[in-house]
């Protein structure tokens, strides 16, 4: 039986009527139309579906959309505010930290979480923080550099 829920995504409220078996990643992509969040492994290990829920990184592919009701969700689109890219987004562009770009939204959100917990991480701490985000293209080096650049400021 469908249920009406209110989802707060990137500071905007969306009312959706959905079946309980709908996953958050699908509601974000299909019902709300925010396709920055990607579906990679669909089993919670690759990080492509990463969103922030009440400030914490979660896998939206393993989250019932109903569980997200009443919480504050941030997707990659939410980092672009008032016409300005987030410093991490700028750094990823400056350093060329992506190739196909599929892992990038999750990678940027994970980078944000790393720096929020630890504003001046060592390289090891950065790499540890990224261990839940898989990238098949870049070898991670430029991602680490971009994070270090933002941390250094």
């Amino acid at each position, binding site marked *: *039986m469908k*249920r009406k829920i209110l989802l707060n995504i990137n500071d905007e409220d969306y009312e959706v009527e959905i*079946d*309980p*078996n709908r*996953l958050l990643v699908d509601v974000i992509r299909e019902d709300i139309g925010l396709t920055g969040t990607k579906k990679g492994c*669909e*089993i*919670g*290990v690759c*990080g492509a579906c*990463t969103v922030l*829920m009440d400030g*914490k*990184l*979660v*896998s939206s592919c*393993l*989250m*019932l959309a*109903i*569980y997200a009701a009443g919480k504050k969700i941030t997707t990659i689109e939410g980092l672009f505010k008032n016409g300005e890219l987030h410093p991490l987004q700028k750094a990823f562009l400056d350093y060329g930290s992506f190739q196909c770009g599929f892992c990038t939204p999750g990678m940027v959100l*994970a980078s944000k*979480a790393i720096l929020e917990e630890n504003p001046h991480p060592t390289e090891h701490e950065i790499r540890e*923080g990224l*261990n*839940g985000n898989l990238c098949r293209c870049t070898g991670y080096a430029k991602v680490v550099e971009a994070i270090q650049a933002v941390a250094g400021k």
Partner: protein
Amino acid sequence: MISGFELLEPKSVKEACSMLSKYGDQAKVIAGGLSLLLFMREKLYRPKYLVSIMGIKGLDYIKYDEKNGLRIGALTTHRTIENSKTIKEKFPVMAETFHKVGSMRIRNVGTIGGNLCHADPRLDPPPTLLALDAKVKVVGPKGNRTIKLEDFFVNYYETVLKPDEILTEVRVPGSPPKTGGAYIRFSTKTNDDTPAVELAAVVTLDSKKEVLENVKIGLGALAPTAIRAKKTEVFLKGKKFKADILEEASRIVSQEVDPIGDLRGSEEYKKEMVGVMLKRGVKMAYEKAGR
């Protein structure tokens, strides 16, 4: 695609148990939902009703006192446990173990109760909790029971929980002085992969810090459930910490396990590796106990 279900949201454990009673094996408990949704996606579970316990207040806590030891509510997340000051102080091997669960995303949502009830022998927390003599409190419509964790797991994805019961609390007794613990997760592929061998060692020393007064070894990924290496423990107990003792213990633990050969290693390799990890684990625990 996850098959359709009705989501029920009880506000108390009592209400949840009566819902589980009513719907029997058509219902499953959902907490964070990580393992459950994964299995439902793979069509291994197809419950018609999901009884979500996320709305039940009072199941997310970490309490410690000298008398009762540690008590953790079933809905406490791995992240809360790894960051807990109390657990880092009193049971550092637990904090280390829970830090290794999945990734940050998993730890933010996954709960200790869900982890134990999922009963996959390759999860990280069970070997450590077994080595710490953990017990679980289980609530059903007819009352409560407390079960030793080593009696809780039955088989892959199977526990002694009855269909109308809910695990509400995990209990760990206080550690005596001169106790140290170590947890090793040995993965043959990538760091984040399911490990080939999991070993937790908790060692208590005598006052002179020479004799292994008590040794508990929890093993994961080597049997249909996480287990204690009882024969190895019996051998090590009361012995001095010496190289030849460790060597013999590593032979005993290799014989004590009967792992399956799979992508992560052959039977022979896993048997060899558990012996290696035993020596490393007991050594690390011994050093921590002596500090």
